[in-house]
């Protein structure tokens, strides 16, 4: 019963009730992933499944992810270099208190992958379009699962738009 966390094979908890979020924070002391609402409403606990798919770790029982790979905010940097989104959040002041930031950044990584796969959103006008541009409305809709109670949305949107400039309309 193993799960890969940021590339390291890790034992799953024996108690099936442990959420992926509590496993990360309490068992592995990876406290970058945040517990906001613990009921799937705020997005602070967003992590990446198999390197690309954003999920909520608070609503995930860890045992359901046996054999899968999870990437948290601690696993985004490579060879000591911050992920481009991490740098952009600093440049654009995409936070105030910082509590939602790890979830925002993991979510933005997953969002970019969805966009590249042509996953439509609520504001996509043409469902048959091969390429979906990251308009202001698309970006805000696609990130609506991540709340920022400080209201740093303008900086968050600018940071994400900057990193995905080639897709911005």
């Amino acid at each position, binding site marked *: 019963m193993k799960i890969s966390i940021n590339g390291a094979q890790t034992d799953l908890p024996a108690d099936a009730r442990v959420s992926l979020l509590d496993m990360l924070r309490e068992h592995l002391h990876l406290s970058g992933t945040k517990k906001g609402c613990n009921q799937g409403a705020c997005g602070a606990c967003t992590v990446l499944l198999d390197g690309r798919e954003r999920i909520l770790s608070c609503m995930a029982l860890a045992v*359901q992810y046996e054999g899968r790979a999870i990437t948290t905010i601690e696993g985004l940097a490579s060879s000591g270099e911050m992920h481009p989104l991490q740098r952009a959040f600093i440049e654009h002041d995409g936070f105030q208190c910082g509590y939602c930031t790890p979830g925002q950044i993991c979510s933005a990584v*997953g969002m970019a992958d969805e966009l590249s796969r042509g996953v439509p959103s609520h504001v996509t006008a043409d469902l048959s379009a091969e390429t979906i541009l990251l308009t202001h409305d698309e970006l805000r809709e696609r990130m609506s699962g991540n709340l920022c109670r400080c209201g740093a949305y303008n900086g968050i949107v600018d940071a994400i738009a900057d990193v995905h400039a080639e897709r911005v309309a």
Partner: protein
Amino acid sequence: MTPFTYTRARDAAEAVRLGAENVAKYIGGGTNLVDLLRETIEHPHSLIDVTGLSDTIEQREDGSLLIGAATRNTAVASHRAVRSQYPVLSRALVAGASAQIRNMATVGGNILQRTRCAYFYDHDGSRCNKRSPGEGCDAIGGFSRNHAILGASSACVATHPSDMCVALAALGANVHLRSARGERTLFLTDLHRLPEDRPDIETMLEAGELITAVEIPALPFSARSTYRKVRDRASYAFALVSVAAALEVEGDTVKEVRLALGGVAHKPWRAWKAEAALKGRRATPESFRAAAEAELADAAPLRDNGFKVELANRTIVAVLTELMEMDV
């Protein structure tokens, strides 16, 4: 959370065998059930993980689709045939929840998700006939802005929260079921129950019965279909009212129409009366309005949700008008 055992089913046969043996719940993405476990509203002895079962979308020669119950909501919304032939389904899915939740949630779990009535969730503070049959309902006489206007009872005024199910109801989808006793199919519109005096019994599923797939029959005019959701926020909120519709017009006459409402009832509400009132009539805003009113004539609003009646009327007219003008 009450302790439970956890087993990952390898296939449907194993799932229903385990489901017959225990005080068990099937778990998909967990986006509703984990919350209900945490709130101790659900307390199964065992969880049977069915996310390893069929998650493929099969497009058959006759144009129908067979969607495995473990298919994630994002995969259905993104599927090429769903986007081109059943836009109402794709639009309903992306109107629901958030991207993270849609990536986790399965089709089977979406259908069987439970109401978000705040009184149902308020385990310690509120009476709820759905949680504890016979104890009373604090939503009736309480804050009822989000509650039902159609098909409710003196025992329960909760609404079904799914957007996807509203689209499936309009499309005439079938649900494939399997248990240790065998297999059967039900129309989605016959799967969920109205509350009557037993709101705790939400579906026609028998003990241990599992949803294995959803079948969407070919519908020649389904490309001219859409979903509109009216809610208190621009995104990531449950529906106050939603409308799923498909329309076929010949000349200036309505040849075929499919209409279903969300946010108004204990189940996805197929608007049979409005459909009957429209077929063969001229496709004008006046006949759309008359059909909407025929459906909403039975509405019984509560203290805080009277606005839903006019909102539903107007949304039906707006959606049908949009479909008239749609480039297909």
